[in-house]
């Protein structure tokens, strides 16, 4: 188990059963803090696979923080990173507004996309650069401080 980092974007980082588990805070600093932990965990990857993984991570985390969370809330994103046979699997869980990236409208081309909408460009990157993409809408429940995710998004990047 690794220590918690004193970075504003990262609530905790630990390795459990060979999987990296991150808890990211509701701040865009989470993107860079989380990325550093993932790079450290995975070590050297093929340049293209590394870039695809970082694009997916950036787009999914920023979309959740910008569009799924309330500003300045104590919400968090739980990310699990694991190596599989020929692929890296990332699992994102959050308690923000329900959002299914597999059903999102993907513009046919950028010429028709509205750049004022962040998702207009992020979603095609998520859909096209992942080797698999799955979404589960969960039923949040319970009380107190325990984390109850509403969204679970699972993406894989071939290595």
């Amino acid at each position, binding site marked *: 188990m690794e220590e918690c980092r004193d970075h504003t974007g990262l609530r905790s980082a630990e390795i459990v059963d060979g999987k990296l588990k991150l808890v990211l805070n509701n701040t*865009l*600093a989470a*993107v*860079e803090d989380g990325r550093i932990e993932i790079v450290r965990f995975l070590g050297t990857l093929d*340049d*293209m696979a*590394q*870039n*695809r993984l*970082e*694009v997916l991570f*950036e*787009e999914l985390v*920023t979309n959740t923080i910008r569009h799924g969370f309330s500003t300045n809330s104590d919400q968090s994103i739980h990310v699990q990173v694991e190596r599989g046979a020929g692929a890296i699997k990332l699992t994102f869980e959050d308690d923000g507004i329900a959002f299914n990236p597999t059903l999102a409208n993907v513009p046919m*081309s*950028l*010429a028709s996309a509205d*750049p004022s909408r*962040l998702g207009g*460009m*992020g979603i*095609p*990157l998520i859909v*096209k*650069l992942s080797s698999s993409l799955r979404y589960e809408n969960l039923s949040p429940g319970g009380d107190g401080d325990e984390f109850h995710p509403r969204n679970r998004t699972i993406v894989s990047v071939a290595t």
Partner: protein
Amino acid sequence: MEMQHSDLGNVRKIVLTGRLDTAGVDLIETRFGASIVPAGRNTVVDISHVTFLASMGIRMLIATTRSLSRKGGKIALYGATPAVREVIDTVALTDIIPLADSEDEAIGLVAG
């Protein structure tokens, strides 16, 4: 993220260095637009030292291209690494902003 600009005759040249991610765009977006749009000149952007490109960077490039277009100017990119090139191809960015292999080719694209 760093940015430098210079002039090649009547063409403005911008050199971007670093990651065009959310944090990088926050650092340079205002300066990038201010270095290109007010002058209204054709512009080439060297992205050979851009190590990462995601949607925020794409949005910055498109917004600036559209603003410059309203003043009659054009932008071309050049020198993308294979990883950045894959992102550009994935979203068909070249439908809006041409991508060249070299500076000379990029200058030819904005001059044409």
